[in-house]
């Protein structure tokens, strides 16, 4: 696991796809996360989009980590 970058800032956005050229995407909820990372040399912005399931999986992992830290 790479351990070089540090999380500086995090922003999120919750939305829904109202229409699309690919029909299966219509009505899907998404969570977009924008992270600002300090690589040591520069600040990098990482943008990712998660489906609802992926977001809940991430939340589950973060909660597990929080419990371990307690």
């Amino acid at each position, binding site marked *: 696991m790479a351990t070089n970058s540090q999380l500086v800032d995090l922003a999120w956005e919750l939305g829904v796809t109202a229409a*699309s050229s690919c029909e299966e995407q219509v009505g899907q909820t998404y969570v977009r996360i924008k992270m600002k990372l300090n690589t040591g040399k520069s600040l990098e912005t990482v943008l990712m989009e998660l489906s609802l399931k992926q977001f809940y999986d991430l939340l589950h992992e973060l909660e597990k980590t929080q419990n371990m830290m307690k």
Partner: protein
Amino acid sequence: MNASPNLLFAVVPKPVEQLSKQLQSKMVDPVVLQTLINFSIRYWKGEEICHSEWKNIVKESYFPLTLLEELFSGVLNLIFAVLRIPEKLFSPKCVCDELIQLGFTMEQAKYITNLKTTSKPDTPSFMKLLGANWRIDVTISTSNVCRVLEPWILMEFNLSSEGPKTIHIPLAQFHSLRYQVASCLTQLNKLSV
């Protein structure tokens, strides 16, 4: 060399005349000539020929530098003339015959003639749009603002050399894009009429 070949030159340039004299006197080593031809192709493609490569061929050829430079000039003129022949007028047999008349061997003439089909200049070209997908997203909430309800357009362009590129277009910009596309289509229709 008085009679000028028809396809290659209206009037044979002096460097090509000099080259032809040297070829007909069988003074030019085939390996050196091949190297000069390869240098010409690379030059045509925009590649640089480094000083050490040039020094090597001067050493290998045993020619004085001025003579080698004249030979290279002749080969360069010739290669450029072959590659510049328009596709409709290009006849491999005629070009081959003209090269043999100038003093090239059959193999060398065929090699140069084949360059027309195998060599392309390294000209920069734009990427091609292979496909596009779109999505209209409505932002419900963000980390900064509770209720947003703002629509955005997400477009994914599939480009030929780079792969998919995704861009976020605000509504105002999307209307501007629509207007530009419509103007472009109008002009395109006028052209076709």
